[in-house]
Structures are given as C-alpha cells and as structure tokens.
C-alpha cells in the first residue's frame, strides 16, 4: 500500500473514530458514587466570599457576619478576638491584599460532609495558613473550620493523590503505615499537655508546641498562693489526608481549660489589651475562674515508625467564667 493510500485510509479511520468518539452515549459502570469536593472555580468563590464577609465584620467590628463563613473553634477564637476588640474599642485590620492560595486539595467523597484543604500564604506576617473549608450538608455554605499557622519556611509534606489527582482522605482511626492513628495522636497530645511527664510513653515528639504550652502552664503554676490547674482534651479528629511517604497530615482540635483558684488576699489580673483581661475585666480575687482556650494543630504523622509532631498551630481564648 502506497504512502498516500495509507494516509488516506488512516484519515478515514480517524474520521470515523473521531465521529464515533465525539460524545457517543454510553452507560456508566458500577463505580462508586462519589464527587470531588469542589471545583477550582468553587474554591475561588469560597475564598472571595470568605474575604468579603471577614472584611465586612472587621469594618463593623461585629463578629456576627463571621458565622456565615466560619464555624467551630475558628469562629469561637475569632469571635473572642472581636469581643476583645469591641471592649478595647480597637479596630481590626482588613485583609485587602491579594489572596495567595498556594495549594488546594479537593478530595473525593461518597457522602457529606465535604471538605477541602488549602495552603494560603500571608506575606505580611510571613506565615502560611493550613486551612480546611467544610460543607457539612448539601444545603449549607462552605465554612472555615480550621486555620492553623506555620512559618513561611516550614515545609508542608507533599500529599499522595489518586488517579484523578485528588488528595486521599484517611480515616482518623486508620494507623496503617504509621506509628499511630490520627485520633490516637490527638489523644496523645492531650495526655502529654495535661501531664508533660507522660511524653516518653505517649509516642509523640516533644515539639515546639508542647514546649510552649508547658512553659505557659509552668509560669501560671508559679503564681504565689494561687492554685492553678490545666487540663486538655482532644476533640474528634475529622480531617486527615495521606502524605506521599505513606503517613498523614491530621487537623487536631484541642480544648484547654485553665482553672485559677485565688484566695481573698490575692488578685490575678492580665495585661491591658489582652483577651483574658477583656473576658475577666475585674481579674480574679477570692474566687475561682476558668479560661477556656481552643488550639488547633496540624500533626504530621510520618510514614513508618517515626513519632508524630505538630507543624502548625492556631488558637486563643474563647470563654472566661468567673465564680
């Protein structure tokens, strides 16, 4: 067959295949019923809406609108900071700079809730935020549920992806290929933070977050004549993704309770302008008071037997109870 004839035959074949392949109806197989959490356009819309609402709240010095874009500990911490700002009559700063979303991961889900993981760089503060936006139900909006911060230089482990390019979600109880499961790591952090001597048996690293919290507890415990107790509890872990080394990145929320029992002849006050001072304006004297904090950390569980460690954190006081 000559070259021209072969070319003509191939062209005709390609034409037939082209026509045949162009939107030829066919039946789907029995694959899983799943969906990608969000499209790129939806992620852009999520961030634009978030920033718009947050800036409006900052401008009004009113945390109320935040409930349409945030929930859980993030909303609690932000609301607390707004309350502090209101009491101190201090205005916040609007976020008008460009959104620098450096990474977006949209896993596949077979049921709600859906969530996405994104890394956002804050050039002004030279940090990066590891954020989770979640849609709890089909009728709900996308809400920010976690936003731990890491230094801009912190290396975020690369993630493993499926054939479709989506990040792979890990069950919080799954410990395959790691020294422990994400939920076990969260519980270990709560145990070690409550009792720093347990770090050897807990199987986690005494990282910067553990040391920082231990220092704060130690200082509070040194207040003369004041009985100080601190307890930590881990909430149920919900957002875990597989890293490329077979490990996982887990978003962990910890509740911290600082309880002060102060005799009548003693008084505890906090520096002016601090959230604690805003929540307990008169300080604590002759009574017991509790300050509740939320801390969110991103725990990296390396593949293999290495110990988990926190690579990002975020938190603040959310409630003060006197009496």
């Amino acid at each position, binding site marked *: 067959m*000559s070259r*021209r*004839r072969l070319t*003509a*035959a191939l062209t*005709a074949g390609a*034409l*037939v295949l082209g*026509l*045949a392949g*162009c*939107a*030829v*109806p*066919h*039946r*789907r197989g*029995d*694959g899983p*019923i*799943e*969906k990608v959490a969000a499209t790129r356009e*939806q992620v852009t*819309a999520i961030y634009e809406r978030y920033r718009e609402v947050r800036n409006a709240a900052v401008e009004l010095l009113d945390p109320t609108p935040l409930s349409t874009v945030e929930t859980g500990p993030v909303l609690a911490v932000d609301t607390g900071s707004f309350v502090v700002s209101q009491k101190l009559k201090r205005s916040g700063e609007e976020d008008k700079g460009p959104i620098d979303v450096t990474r977006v991961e949209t896993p596949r*889900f*077979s*049921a*709600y809730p*859906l969530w996405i993981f994104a890394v956002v760089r804050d050039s002004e503060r030279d940090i990066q935020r590891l954020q989770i936006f979640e849609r709890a*139900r*089909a*009728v709900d909006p996308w809400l920010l549920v976690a936003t731990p911060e890491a230094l801009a230089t912190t290396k975020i482990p690369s993630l493993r992806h499926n054939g479709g390019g989506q990040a792979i979600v890990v069950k919080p109880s799954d410990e395959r290929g790691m020294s422990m499961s994400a939920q076990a790591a969260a519980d270990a952090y709560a145990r070690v933070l409550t009792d720093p001597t347990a770090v050897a048996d807990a199987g986690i690293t005494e990282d910067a977050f553990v040391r920082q919290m231990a220092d704060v507890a130690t200082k509070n415990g040194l207040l003369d004549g004041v009985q100080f107790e601190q307890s930590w509890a881990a909430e149920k872990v919900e957002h875990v993704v597989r890293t490329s080394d077979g490990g996982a990145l887990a978003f962990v929320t910890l509740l911290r309770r600082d309880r002060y029992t102060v005799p009548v002849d003693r008084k505890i006050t906090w520096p002016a302008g601090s959230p604690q001072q805003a929540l307990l304006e008169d300080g604590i004297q002759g009574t017991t008071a509790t300050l509740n904090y939320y801390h969110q950390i991103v725990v990296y569980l390396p593949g293999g037997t290495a110990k988990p460690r926190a690579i990002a954190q975020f938190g603040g006081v959310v409630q003060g109870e006197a009496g």
Partner: protein
Amino acid sequence: MRRSILGWALTVLGLCVALLGLALAVLLGPDGRRTTGPHEIETDGSVVVTAPRVIRWVDVRVDILVEVPVKKPVFVGLGNTVDVENLVDDVRRVEVTRFSAPWKLTTVDREGERSAVQAAPTSLDWWLADAAGLGGASISTTLPDEPVSLAITSIGSSNLSGLKVSLAYGIKGGFLKGLGLLLIGAGGALGGRMLRRGEHVFRDDDGADEVVYVYVDDDGVEHQLTEAEVVAGGFDVIEEEVEPGDVVADGERDTAAPVPAGEDEDGQGAENGAEPELQVGSAPTYVWIDDDGVEHELSEAELAELADDEYEIVDEEDDR
C-alpha cells in the same frame, strides 16, 4: 490475498458504520432526539427524585419539562447523586427506583422526618442544571460522566400534585452525525470493494494526468500542440509514449503524437514500420536548434558525421 482481506474488512466495517449512521438518523429524526410525555407522576408530596444509579447514561442530551397545575411554583434540577441524596435524605419523597426508555417507571414512597427540603433549591450552587418556574420548569443538559440524580421539588408550601413530566433524549446534532456516519460507512464499503477488485482509488503521481501532444512535420521537426489545437487541427493520435515510472490505466494516454486528419493511420503506421507502442527508456535523441529557434532532430550517425565541424553536445537531458 492481503488486498482481498483488507478489502473485505473495509467493506464490513463500512457497512457497519453506515448501518449505525442510518439507524441513528432514523431513530432520532431531524431534531436529533426522541420525545415522550407528558406523563403523570402521582404524588401529593413535595419531592420526586431518582434513586442512585437510575440515571446511568453518559453524553446523552436530555430535555426535561415538569409541569404542575394552577401555576404552582416548581423546581427541577440535575445534580451529583452525593448532593441530591444529602438534600432529600430525611425528606418524605417519591423515589424513582427504575426507569427504562421511552417511559417506564418504578417508584417507591420513602418516609422522612421532613415534608420538604430544608433550603430553597434555587439557592444551592451545586446543581449541574436547574430551573424553576410557576406552573412549569425545564432543563436541557448533557448527562455528564459522574453519578447524577434528578430532583423535582415544590417551592414554598405548595406540593407536586398533578405533576406531569415530559422527556426528550438524544444526541446533540445526532441526525447530522448519523448522516455523516452513513456517508463515511458507504465510502468505506465502496473503498473496500475497489480494493478487493484491485482498482486504484488514488493515483500515486500528481503529474500522471499531464498529456503532451507533439506534431512531427515532414522535416522531422517536433511542434508541441495544445489539446485545443489538436481538436481544431483535426489531428489523429497515432503514437503514444509513456514516461518511465508512470502507471497508466486501461484506455489512458499520457503522451500522444498526432497526425493531420485524413492521413491513413494504418499507412502512417506502415511508414513508421510499427504500431504505436510503449517506449520506456528509449535511446537518446539529438536535436539541433537553428538560429530561428526551430528544432531539427538528428540521428546518431548524422551527429557523428558533423560533430567534428559544426556540432557539439551542449546540453544533456535525462527525462527519467
């Protein structure tokens, strides 16, 4: 043998494609789709939804029209099954558990804590296609390659009693695509037939069609003529020459030497001493061009005789 097998394969493939195209065009008609309805769906609730995996087709163009009486507000939407299932999860509803074309439904009444979906369906951003209206709404979309479900809901406090659904499904531009396949298939079948018979579908050389007419006068001088001059002069073709490498089908003439009409072709043939025949790789021809630009053909002997005095070979042409 190989050509025969290829020819048969091409013929069969062409016929299959042609039949497919014909069936497509006939089945879908000029508008490229089949239409059915309106069909009534009995319900006094506010939600009708297809169960997971009921809609399995991909790349099918669907047009869905839902109608309710007395201009009640109604919504129709197509969404990923994960979204739709979550939307209607705890809602009392009619669920279509089986559907076969053109219109055969199996439905089940599902119980739920709520009588209606929790949010206005029009406010949700995940619909792949959706529409709302008073008394009716319609969507037109192509089924994507992902699990999808169809939901019909009332809006506000109304219900879906008296619901009627019309459905059209097909392929976008299906009729033209069918005709295209028919033509391509027919062409393939024809090509296969020609291949089996050894006929040439395509020529190998673009220049093979060029015909040159040359008139040789009594002095042996060649004059090139156009086809019009040949016709006008009433010349007859008495000799054909084919350039080496050309393939000439039966009845085709590539190079012809005409003679004036009326001259006996047989006699001319006798004068030349031979019938016209293909000459491939003939001996070199020596031509002398005089001052007037007229060419004079010389034999090799004449050339040898005069070469010492007046002639020299100034140009050699290889016409292969």
